[in-house]
């Protein structure tokens, strides 16, 4: 399998490591077990594992050390999109504001 890193171009799988579901969100810093235990449990333990398109985090550790958000079909390994996680995260926080 190959991933097209937005900074390094098309690279072999051996340069990357997989982390998992990119849809989980770290609850806000001011939440606690008392105010939102479910949100923390979801964030730390619950992961979707769809058969089909999946948004997931990968790390280009043997390259530019970028974290990436990869949109991949888990059945075919077809990769539809690779974006820098920092860009996705910046949009996300921008959107939430």
């Amino acid at each position, binding site marked *: 399998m190959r991933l097209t890193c937005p900074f390094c171009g*098309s690279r072999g799988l051996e340069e990357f490591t997989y982390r998992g579901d990119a849809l989980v969100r770290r*609850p806000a810093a001011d939440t606690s077990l008392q105010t939102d235990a479910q949100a923390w449990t979801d964030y730390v333990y619950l992961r979707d594992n769809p058969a089909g398109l999946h948004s997931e985090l990968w790390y280009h550790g043997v390259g530019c050390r970028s*974290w990436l958000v990869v949109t991949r079909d888990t059945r075919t390994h*077809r990769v539809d999109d690779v974006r820098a996680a920092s860009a996705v995260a910046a949009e996300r926080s921008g959107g939430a504001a």
Partner: protein
Amino acid sequence: MSGAASHPKAGAQPMRVANGNAVDTSRTLHFTFDGRRLSGHPGDTLASALLAHGIHLAGRSFKYHRPRGILSAGPEEPNALVELRDGARREPNTRATVAELFDGLVARSQNRWPSLAFDALGMNGLLSSVLGAGFYYKTFMWPASFWEKVYEPAIRRAAGLGRAADEADPDHYEKATTFCDVLVVGSGPAGLAAALAAGRAGARVILCEEDSLPGGRLRAEHMTLDGAPAADWVAKACQALAAMPEVTVMTRACVFGTYDGGTYGVLERVADHKPVPAEGEARQRLWRIVARRCVVATGAIERPVVFPNNDRPGVMLAGAVRTYVNRFGVAPGRRAVVYTCNDDGLRTARDLARVGVKVAAIVDSRPEGTGAGAQVARDCGAPFFAGASLADVYGSKGVKSVLVRDHAGQAHNIACDLVAMSGGWSPNIALTTHQGARPDYREDICAFVPSALPPGMVVVGAAAGVFDTAEALGQGAQAGQAAAALCGFETALPDLPRAEPASYGIQALFHALKGVAAAKKGKAFVDFQNDVTARDIGLAAHEGFVSVEHLKRYTTLGMATDQGKTSNVNALALLAEVSERSIAQTGTTLIRPPTQPVAIGALAGAHRGPHFKPERLPPTHQWAMAQGAVFTANGLWQRAQWYPRAGEQTWQETVNREVRTVREAVGFCDVTTLGKIDIQGPDAAEFLERVYVNAWKKLPVGRARYGLMLREDGFAYDDGTTARLGENHYVMTTTTANAGGVMAHLEFCHQWLWPEMDVQFISVTDEWAQIAVAGPKSRDVLRQIVDPEYDLSNEAFGYMAARSVTVCGGQEARLFRLSFSGELAYELAVPARYGAALAERLMQMGAPYGIAPYGTEALGVLRIEKGHPAGPELNGQTTAHDLGMGRMLSTRKDFIGRVMAQRPALTDPARPTLVGLQPLCATDTLAAGAHLLPQGALATAAADQGWISSAAWSPTVGSWIALGFLANGATRLGEVVAVHNPLAGTVVNARVVSPVFVDPEGERLHG
């Protein structure tokens, strides 16, 4: 026409009857087969050379030990598996049909005892009633205890294939990666045309051919291109390709797998055709080729026909017979019967007749008036049977005659020594299905063709069901042109040679039996390599295994090393017939990589023995070697474990001396392996606040602090010290084991959680050699090394101070007053290239103070004596609370793990927490992994209250000591517990004590 009798080499190789287009008969090679001295020529395969001597019998079959001959002329060979070479290079299960002959080749038949001609286990054929489909499942079930001791060894002896070498492989294997625009797989007419078209456009093209010579069927057939022998055009095409700078032609290179993202696995047999690889040459090379487009032109594989005793030596595929005649100049027999269901098979009769072989009969399964059989028979002077079938074959180690049943049911016994059979051609589509596509069945050509293709792939020529040469050339050229154009290289089509038209006219013929299940007389084989007969398929279907996936596993059909290349379609046809479905409805099993056997050695490449993993060497490694250090592996790092001195009898003696040196004088230890991460930016302090549990904002410049990191689930992750070198500049240390992980973690936190923070990280682990100098005399030694303008007094440079300094007269360095040993201690970092020089300088300047290097073992003893947690304590299952660091967790900020660490279960006082343990008898050994139980309790899991994580003999305390985790540990100081070590079978009583065994007030540290 040259007859067998007139050929000059008839004496030595009686069946070498013509000049093959790939054989150099001017040179002779000698080889042995089962000890018999034989000869051949450059260009021969082992199979063609054996056939040149009239030898068909090449091995015994897997289950029934039936005599087997050479079926094919290519990699699909199921029968002729032999052992090649001797000694450490002995290689079993090699296909004689692809093994290139070299002078001195030693080949042996396999799976026979005591000899090929007489095999004691041949009687398995008589036991066939118990060896049928599923016999393993039915026969060797009870009693269960018999499996390992009785059944399995017996089965392995009887059914094994060849013998692997007993010694380590002396050859080396390489791995390589390359990239291209267009990968062309196969160099028959379609593949050559595709490569020519893409190459002339300027695209970067790789043409892979698994054979030693390009050409595919163009070498195997008696045919012309532009009026000249087809092999001439192949040579011209290869010259044209060689002149194109962007085109690479790789022969002996098998594309064995299609992987995601246009990645292909290729095995190049670099030196398999030589007795021994040349000096420095790899035996095989495993390529990973990344291609933007791929043109698959892998041709087709001919099917045998299923009829009784169709496995007798001398029964061959018709196309293979033509290959031996045209490519190798070898006639596989003197009297041949051709059995076909298509016009292509009829070519065999013409080719045989041309080289003087008597065609005893042409048996065509098609009805009278269909196909070109009658004309061919007339031309060859052969009796012709239309609408007929082969009903049996006589002779066991070779064909003596066949029984032909004509269209009226009349039987004819025809003497012959060769049967050339053709059930039609199956496109070789394996590469198109590796990603899960199921091929489509085409009734008109009685074969499966590719369906959905992996991205970037096209299939052309016979692999796509196009069996006409002119059409294959045209289709290949267009595919090559289109593939190049998609990569941005456009050009006109190349000129293509004129090919003779050829008819195919196939009519389905998978078996010549009167009903599959009823076939009782003589075994009719479907899968030659795994000895699966038509009857087995009938039996499996009768027992309910009608799914093609079940049939495969129950009968083992197609599961041999040939992957059922010659058998799968016939089996499906038989299964379809007994289950009264069409072949399309029956479907086919998935084909998985590799398409050809790939040696584990090739997959391993250079990664074997000491090169299995890379080694990381600290900067003082060579120096430590010279000191006679003993080394230990710390992950990939090689670290000095201890430094023995003359006269020391045991490692314990050495370690005790090293510990005492640190406690009483001064020692030094290379701690470069600890991860070092340089952190810079205006938000660096805020960032540290969020990844460590404790506070960082108030840490002044020039100071270091211990930090603990948690995982987001609240468990301890890593620890280390971080020093503030400047306003916005920190250097973090991590544990050796987690250096890479912490780096990825910091990047994750920054890029994904807090991208708004202005902070950057870089790993500097390998940039700095860092040496710990520890002991009461450490300041005195460093005073000799650090340049005099730096004040090292306790007042100016106290515990946890950190700063840039210069050493040895101006060399930049960093000095930290850190202590893992509990003594007055420093860590001095210099650029990595000066690490060994620093060690030498320390030895020199420290000599008057009694300095000595110490290794990881003494390092461990020193930290256990001080109760410092390390890897065994930070094992991923312990919390800050367990480690006695619960109060470090700041309540005034957010940090990774903050919320989940507050879960009641993670701070439950009943959780095992860090304690020290000291045996009541000082010399009683404590061992890591031992369990802690109340005294007198039964050694049950229910009574288990904790474990020992680290243990050592402490020369300072004069006793064994240990760190461990004990339930309610903090409240149990002074209590005596039982330490169970079930591995050693010991129970030792030990007192629960503070984990800090030495200098609990920390006075030495601050001295």
